[in-house]
């Protein structure tokens, strides 16, 4: 799909701006992320078409190319965003698939039991270490031992709910 359409070049509307500012404020407050990077994430959720050139993304949300690179470094390896070549060799294309974000969240949650096993192994590795040194990993092991049981159950219930026919 071409990304040089009029739609791709127009500036965000007030409602779109409100949304991307809301996403940015959330990430700044909760992860300390600079606002420009959060706006970029927000825009990638609602942009039309879903595929945008890196250059047009920078122009739309008012961020630097380094911000685009940072967000791609964060979200391409995990599969939330896809990066591909652009017709202009100095530019590239970025896209978020319709279900990429929820699928990513579910994949992270599905791996919590694996993470817990690694933490158990770490506790064993420090079995003879002083209590003060063990405290960090023991605290994590307790939490993720709990989450490795609870979270898969939450996701299973969500999937089950999604399969059920909607009441009219």
């Amino acid at each position, binding site marked *: 799909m071409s990304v040089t359409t009029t739609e791709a070049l127009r500036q965000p509307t007030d409602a779109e701006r409100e949304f991307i500012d*809301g996403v940015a404020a959330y990430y700044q407050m909760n992860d300390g992320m600079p606002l420009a990077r959060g706006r970029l994430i927000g825009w990638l959720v609602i942009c039309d078409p879903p595929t945008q050139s890196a250059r047009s993304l920078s122009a739309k949300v008012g961020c630097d190319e380094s911000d685009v690179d940072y967000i791609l470094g964060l979200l391409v390896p995990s599969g939330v965003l896809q990066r591909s070549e652009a017709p202009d060799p100095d530019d590239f294309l970025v896209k978020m698939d319709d279900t990429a974000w929820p699928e990513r*969240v579910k994949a992270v949650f599905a*791996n919590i039991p694996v993470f817990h096993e*690694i933490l158990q192994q*770490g506790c064993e*590795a420090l079995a003879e*270490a002083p209590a003060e040194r063990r405290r*960090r990993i023991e605290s994590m092991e307790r939490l993720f031992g*709990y989450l490795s049981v609870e979270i898969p159950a939450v996701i299973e219930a969500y999937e089950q709910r999604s399969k059920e026919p909607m009441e009219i």
Partner: protein
Amino acid sequence: MSDSLPPIAAERLGDAERRFVENFGRYYEREGFAYPLGCVLGWLVISDTPCQRASEICERLGVTHAHVDRVAEQMVPAELLDREELDGGDYTLSMRDEAWHKAVEHTFCSWPQFHAVMQSGLDRIDDQPPGRMNRLRSMEDLFSYLSVELPTVMRRFEEKSRLA
């Protein structure tokens, strides 16, 4: 996917420590982080002492200063790690005992706020061509569920911890 830390790390970590740090790195690599970044984070979970100089971490794990800087850039604002500047451009990173617990709790309990942003987006950005809002709609559906369930999961953990 990387298999192991550089040989220098084998000389400066015990076998069990190295296995843990490498497994941590591999786990984070599967989650989309560069392998050395996960190793740095894993080391900070078990390091002795909890407070480590960036230069020491590089020497011990055989990772670059850029790797440690990247971990600091991502994890300090998220309050998983504390950073203190030292003379000469070096700095320390440390993980508090309850840092991970606080970070997970904070994330789960912030999701109702994230969901509200998505819901408002769906309400406000109307009159769109078919399919445009699919990304936002699929996120809103999952987060509407998780924003109720996950704070409850954390509350049950707190209750369980209090009774233990």
